[in-house]
């Protein structure tokens, strides 16, 4: 018996990526995909990689029929305003927007700068990083998929914060991101002559994903995370370089043990730290189309600084792939189902 799902907002990059995965998932039947801009058009017109993979056409959200689960791939501040309509259509929802990620209303208003339409629902949604919330997901009806920058940063640093081995106010994270993180809406800055070749510091401070990192890694303590994001000339992918300062002078072997204890059984996390070869640390381009998060680290021999490097495909582990991983957990399926693509090399 297949699970009937529909995607609301399927014409964007995240929706398209999710559709690519779902069409080849053995336990899923994609029922409807919505787009207000492209209603009536074949989906391959917008997602040309899906040509001959499906005969689906976009429908308006007004035409949505009941299904088992709805994926919401809408812009920020959309899901929360129509959540009651979506709940009537499906008993389970996975929201890929930022609307229900934060559990603290004050934090939401601080970081997003407006009132939340349905604050009483914030705690109904499980925060969508499976490596942190797998057991809650097994019983969940509502999941809020995590932000891409937050996912890479949290997965890279979570074991260190959980074990209490880093100074709580000195974490600095710099991410380099590809253009697909900006979505498929064009603007002057995305015009090719302007965008090509950039190293654009687009959010040096106050990036909203910081709030997710604080939420997931504070463990009831006051912590500070200093986060900056830089757009580079890449379509997919994200590399987070995280600087933390160890409370004690640990050896790398001890750091290895901490990561091994945390992630040895995780299907989508790989520790990448080698002393030779050309891919010694995580490299986002090798992860294109995969659901892996590769994590590496290096201890500064002259200080107590530990540099943690974390890479993902922002559209996969940072969005659609992670949402599908959560779906698999919700339905008791093998977590890897539909997510086995190992990536390409060379690329």
């Amino acid at each position, binding site marked *: 018996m297949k699970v009937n799902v529909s995607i609301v907002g399927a014409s964007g990059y995240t929706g398209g990526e999710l559709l690519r995965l779902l069409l080849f998932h053995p336990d899923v039947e994609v029922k409807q995909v919505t787009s207000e801009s492209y209603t009536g058009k074949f989906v391959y017109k917008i997602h040309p990689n899906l040509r001959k993979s499906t005969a689906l056409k976009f429908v308006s959200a007004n035409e949505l029929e009941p299904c088992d689960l709805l994926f919401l791939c809408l812009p920020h501040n959309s899901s929360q305003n129509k959540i009651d309509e979506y709940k009537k259509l499906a008993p389970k929802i996975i929201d890929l927007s930022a609307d229900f990620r934060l559990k603290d209303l004050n934090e939401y208003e601080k970081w997003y700068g407006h009132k939340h339409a349905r604050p009483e629902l914030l705690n109904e949604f499980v925060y969508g990083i499976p490596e942190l919330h797998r057991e809650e997901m097994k019983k969940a009806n509502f999941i809020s998929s995590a932000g891409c920058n937050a996912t890479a940063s949290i997965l890279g640093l979570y074991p260190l914060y959980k074990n209490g081995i880093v100074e709580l106010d000195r974490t600095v994270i710099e991410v380099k991101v590809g253009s697909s993180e900006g979505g498929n809406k064009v603007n002057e800055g995305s015009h090719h002559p302007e965008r090509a070749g950039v190293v654009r510091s687009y959010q040096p401070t106050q990036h909203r994903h910081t709030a997710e990192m604080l939420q997931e890694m504070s463990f009831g303590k006051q912590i500070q995370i200093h986060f900056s994001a830089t757009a580079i000339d890449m379509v997919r992918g994200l590399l987070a370089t995280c600087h933390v300062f160890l409370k004690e002078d640990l050896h*790398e*072997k*001890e750091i*290895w*043990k901490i990561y*091994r204890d945390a992630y040895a059984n995780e299907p989508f996390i790989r*520790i990448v*730290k*080698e*002393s*030779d*070869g*050309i891919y010694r640390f995580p490299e986002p381009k090798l992860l294109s189309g995969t659901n892996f998060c590769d994590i590496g680290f290096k201890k500064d021999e002259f200080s107590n600084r530990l540099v943690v490097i974390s890479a993902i495909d922002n559209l996969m582990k940072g969005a659609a792939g992670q949402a599908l991983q959560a779906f698999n957990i919700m339905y008791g399926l093998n977590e890897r189902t539909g997510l086995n693509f190992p990536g390409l090399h060379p690329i």
Partner: protein
Amino acid sequence: MKTECPVCGAEIGLAKDAVQGELIECTDCGTELEVVSVDPPKVQEAPQEEEDWGE
């Protein structure tokens, strides 16, 4: 015959027919290791030539 990678601490299993001086790789960190003793089992980092990484 089990020992530990001196770099990352991963468990290293030596084959029954392992011999002193044999080179093996750690499956976790990829470090090339030299078997310096079979009984008791012991490995150390194999000497590496300095490498130009192209930077």
